């Protein structure tokens, strides 16, 4: 395995809403993981498990309750001057789930895409600004005639391309894609995923790809993290996770995906996950443990021994 540089370190991140009140929600409950430079980390789980909150906390749309997010060794959270924040915002961008809600309907495409350019002063004059927007539109497979239109004139897939062009405008290193394809048709999903992959190869981007569609996640990700109720329960290389799912929740999630294969579907048996089945004792040290190289599972010491024995020969 090649030596990889850590771009992002997320350490004991916690995000509680309504903290201290009776309706406290532990949206993210003490998760730790790294994102390496140039990789795609997929984050999956059912709605409400905290995957979107994780993405939003990393990019500082929320202030973390506790824990650290280190970007290139610098803590993202904590007191920051305006200039520091600005330089940081340029490195990290986000693509949102709903291409209908994330583009301002009253702005022209030209201004939507150039907003970041203006804020960061990346272009000197109007001519350069226009050139850059045309270039970005072409990068995402649209053309320059589109620059003078409004978002409502585009289809869902085209809008998501606009969202990608806007994110790319400031030449970021790291992009958080929060369910970028969930709202799109199957055939269009493939187009957008291919585009994201091409851009990654071309520009050496790093992605955090949040989704609940597990088959697409496997296709685009190098490593995948599975979240359940605010906790990361399993983190492994994509292939490995699908071949040797270890946490019972991951197993239940994988067994629930219908595949376009009638024979397989007739024989598929769905597993259900009951969090009580672990029978953790009070004070038992349940944490992420590495069962196979690079394959971490949230488990107790006893479960760890069992898993290790099971997977010793794989």
């Amino acid at each position, binding site marked *: 395995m090649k030596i990889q540089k850590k771009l992002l370190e997320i350490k004991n991140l916690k995000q509680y809403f309504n903290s201290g009140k009776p309706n406290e929600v532990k949206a993210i409950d003490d998760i730790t993981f790294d994102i390496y430079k140039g990789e795609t980390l997929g984050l999956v789980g*059912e*709605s409400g498990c905290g995957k979107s909150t994780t993405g939003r906390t990393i990019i500082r749309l929320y202030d973390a309750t506790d824990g650290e997010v280190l970007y290139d060794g610098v803590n993202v959270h904590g007191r920051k001057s305006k200039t520091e924040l600005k330089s940081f915002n340029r490195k990290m961008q986000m693509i949102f789930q709903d291409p209908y809600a994330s583009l301002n309907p009253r702005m022209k495409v030209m201004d939507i895409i150039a907003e970041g350019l203006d804020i960061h002063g990346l272009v000197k004059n109007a001519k350069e600004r226009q050139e850059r927007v045309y270039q970005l539109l072409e990068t995402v497979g649209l053309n320059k005639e589109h620059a003078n239109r409004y978002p409502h004139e585009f*289809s*869902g*897939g085209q809008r998501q391309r606009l969202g990608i062009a806007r994110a790319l405008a400031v030449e970021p290193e790291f992009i958080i894609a929060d369910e970028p394809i969930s709202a799109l*048709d*199957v*055939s*269009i*999903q*493939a*187009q957008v*995923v*291919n585009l994201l*992959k091409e851009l990654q190869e071309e520009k050496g981007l790093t992605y955090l790809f949040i989704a*609940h569609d*597990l*088959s*697409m996640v*496997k*296709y685009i990700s190098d490593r995948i993290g599975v979240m359940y109720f605010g906790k990361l329960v399993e983190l492994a290389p994509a*292939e490995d996770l*699908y071949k040797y799912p270890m946490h019972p929740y991951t197993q*239940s*999630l994988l067994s*629930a*995906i*219908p*595949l*376009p*294969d*009638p*024979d*397989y*579907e007739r024989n*598929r048996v*769905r597993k259900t996950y009951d969090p009580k089945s672990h029978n953790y004792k009070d004070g038992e040290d349940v944490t992420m443990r590495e069962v196979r190289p690079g394959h971490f599972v949230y488990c107790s010491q006893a479960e760890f021994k069992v898993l290790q024995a099971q997977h010793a020969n794989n």
Partner: protein
Amino acid sequence: MEKILEVKNLELSFHTFAGEVKAIRGVNFDLKKGETLAIVGESGSGKSVTTKAIMRLLPESSSEFKNGQILFNGKDLTKLTDKEMQKIRGKDISMIFQDPMTSLNPTMTIGKQIMEPILKHQNVAKSEAQKMAIDLLKLVGMPQPEQRMKQYPHQFSGGQRQRIVIAIALACNPKILIADEPTTALDVTIQAQILELMKDLQKKIDTSIIFITHDLGVVANVADRVAVMYSGKIVEIGTVDEIFYNPQHPYTWGLLSSMPSLDVQEEKLYAIPGTPPDLLNPPKGDAFALRSEYAMQIDMEETPPFFKVSDTHYAATWLLHPDAPEVTPPATIIERMKRFPNSRYYESANGGILK
């Protein structure tokens, strides 16, 4: 098997400021008793419009039946008055919508909403209807149905709301249940539960289901037969095995190839190039030709008729014409065809290729 619904040569247009949008351009299919027919296709292919036409849910001011019939029990649904249609809608034919968040009334208790079709279509007392509603909630697997009856939609999760919508749809034991992307808004685990519930209920009450979706995994799971729609037409129809293991239309090939598989590691995902045609000016010939690498000259000039592949399998592509050159389908499709006994790529158990 007994045919319960026949759609014959249906054509339907919308009148818009920009002109006439030909949303459905000659659709034919029938639905047999107790079966599940899946209709697949991308947005704008006309799959939802077809079912809304069956339910007569399209606005009369802007939509128009140009041609064709929808026969149910010998009656042509396109000709019925609103009053007559109201007797069928919700009783003989009912519908489950895509978004359980918006298809329930937020100001009514769910008990009242389930009782509504019962009181409307069945001559029963209110207390009786209440009992039936509780039974329905039990049927769809809702815990503590008595207490839940008095609650409002916002007190339920997405999966539970979809169960309630299903309970309402089943309230009068419909002969046909139309499910328009019933699981698209749900998580995979909840989706699996709802699909299992629907299959289970179908066995119990012996209803026919028309299932609209663009998720081919779901199709493989629920369907007996599959109709593939593209730009207002059915381009291929057959049993679920025929469509998944012996597809004939290039559009079906494209759809099947653009799904990533869990077991194979592909380098690049196949994406159908371009976008669907504008139905204000539908293209001449095969509507998919402009996006297809298998298009021939004739595809640009003349609309292909249905060619018979088997008694149950038809596809509208000139590639099936006896004079057409033999083409090689995409690699992933050949892999699928190898498993189907009547296809030309079938590899029998001993490894030989039968032709």
